[in-house]
């Protein structure tokens, strides 16, 4: 996994319209992020072109020009801004893979679905939780098409005229910053797993199939 320290780029807010009012879209689910017809792949790469497919293209496959990721400069977004409960739905990692393949490295939202949140770190995407009010203010700047800087080392988002701190837990941060391989670090504890297995198989032998 690539190491993650500082990302600077365009931020695309995912908005919903109700009357003249624009609001950040809530409950963006994994089926919206990557519709299931693209899950038949046996590879991790190549899903970016189908990110948000049904919002991005019409039935004939033409780009829908009102969709944010089809507009300049947002076509090159590295940061996504969204409403509550981002990534709800399935556990498929195709969702973070497609975001990453498109070029999105950071998602900012008031809240995330559990599994998506975990999956993001494991794939080199930083999900940032912030208060809705703060997100709305970032959205206003993002809409101007300015680049935004996300500094993971210092845990700060740098806007043109101010900085916004964000929280991230230590192990997740480590994982991104060092580009750690989870399996590699777990295998260092293999003797603990062996011990556990030996003990458990005596106490609860039925736990071992057949």
């Amino acid at each position: 996994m690539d190491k993650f320290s500082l990302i600077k780029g365009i931020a695309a807010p995912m908005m919903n319209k109700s009357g003249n009012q624009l609001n950040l879209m809530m409950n963006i689910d994994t089926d919206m992020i990557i519709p299931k017809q693209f899950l038949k792949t046996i590879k991790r790469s190549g899903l970016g072109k189908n990110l948000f497919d049904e919002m991005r293209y019409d039935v004939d496959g033409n780009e829908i020009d009102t969709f944010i990721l089809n507009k300049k400069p947002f076509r090159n977004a590295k940061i996504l801004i969204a409403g509550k409960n981002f990534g709800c739905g399935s556990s498929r990692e195709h969702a973070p893979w497609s975001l990453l393949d498109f070029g999105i490295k950071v998602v900012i939202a008031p809240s995330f679905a559990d599994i998506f949140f975990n999956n993001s770190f494991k794939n080199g995407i930083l999900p940032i939780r912030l208060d809705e009010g703060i997100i709305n203010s970032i959205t206003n700047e993002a809409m101007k098409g300015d680049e935004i800087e996300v500094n993971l080392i210092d845990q700060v988002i740098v806007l043109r005229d101010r900085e916004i701190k964000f929280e991230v837990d230590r192990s997740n941060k480590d994982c991104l910053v060092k580009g750690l391989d989870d399996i590699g670090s777990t295998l260092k504890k293999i003797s603990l797993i062996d011990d556990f297995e030996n003990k458990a198989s005596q106490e609860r032998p039925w736990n071992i199939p057949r």
Partner: protein
Amino acid sequence: MSESKTIYDKIWESHLAYEGDDDCLLYIDRHLIHEVTSPQAFEGLRTSNRKVRSPMSALAVADHNIPTTDRSKGIGDRESEIQIQTLEDNCNEFGIEYIKTTDKRQGIVHIIGPEQGFTLPGLTIVCGDSHTSTHGAFGALAHGIGTSEVEHVLATQTLIQKKAKNFQVKINGLCQDNVTAKDLALSVIGTIGTAGGTGYVIEYTGEAVRSLSIEGRMTLCNLTIEAGARAGLIAPDEKTFEYLKDKPMSPKGEEWNRAVKYWKSLPSDEDAEYDKTIEIDAGNLTPLVTWGTSPEDVISIDGNIPNLEDIQDESKRSAVKRSLDYMNLVPGSPIKGVAIDRVFIGSCTNGRIEDLREAASILSGKKVSERVMAMVVPGSGLVKEQAEKEGLDRIFIEAGFEWREPGCSMCLAMNADKLSPKERCASTSNRNFEGRQGREGRTHLVSPKMAAAAAVAGCLADVREMVG
């Protein structure tokens, strides 16, 4: 120190292979594998030259992609075929048991696990699929994982985890006739919302839960993920043991007795404390239906679609507006009587034998409306076989339903079974997201009985009126 514990606390503590300040290594007893979320994990093992630590603890089956028509002719779709073949090849290479597409045990992962006795109380069970929560019905700690974690479990038999908080959902009283486990589950999601369970493991307690059959409990736990909690749990009891006895992979003989004794120690201590508790009265519930594109958009079948003016929160209002536009529904109007084009009975939520019995009980002697195309997709080959033994297939076919081969089918529409744009479906599945059952398709989540009633009426209908 004798602190009282919940069932979740007990299973968690008995599976800690390592406990750190920040995170823990949770030992995983069982791992279910399917074709969509596993190829990249096996690929990862190969590139880093790693083995599968305990191939015996895993069981694999293809379900998401598979056609529900005659399979003797092969899979048909080239990409699906490659994905399914890749699963079989990977299982052979790494020594994992694979249930072939032509085996009568083939079916949806979450249905075959319990059928085979692969799912047992007190175990930790994972699968690269969010509805793994289903297995919590047996008092197992079961949850969905992503592909990176699939690889992690294959290589280490553990997961890096943080402990969740305890959330008790107590469902008091008993359901009225024609109100089922699906309605209970939808009511929970409607009450706490799709993010209401985030960060928690939900334990379902109360009279209504105890009185549910094992199938009903699976439906309830299955939908826990739609309320944002990774896992749902129900303490095991005599019904659980009865269901599991003599299943192919259940413990046998003296080991069975030992296991049951252990399982009886699992239920939460009487004075166990929960971080959060809500209570729901089952007696007040009516059959439910979703109107929108989120499983929390739940109303009673005799209720009205929300009015935009009634919604104060602005972002909520714009979300509802988007949903209603997508669903093509009139705000404020009754949900009952909305015409439908399709009915789907199946999925890991409602594809078990009891679900088919319930739907058939409504259909017996009736005909599917001319405007409706209806299909039943049994959750597994064994469910299908049992249903045929009981003559349920005849009831469905005579009513005008299509009787299909087992798989996920139109629950997620990865195979040929899908809605055409703008088609409206009464579905027993679990997600009504935009495009879930086919691009621009419109999904209303209902119970099997309500799906059957809708098929006959040609519109969303109140099953209570149909049975008189």
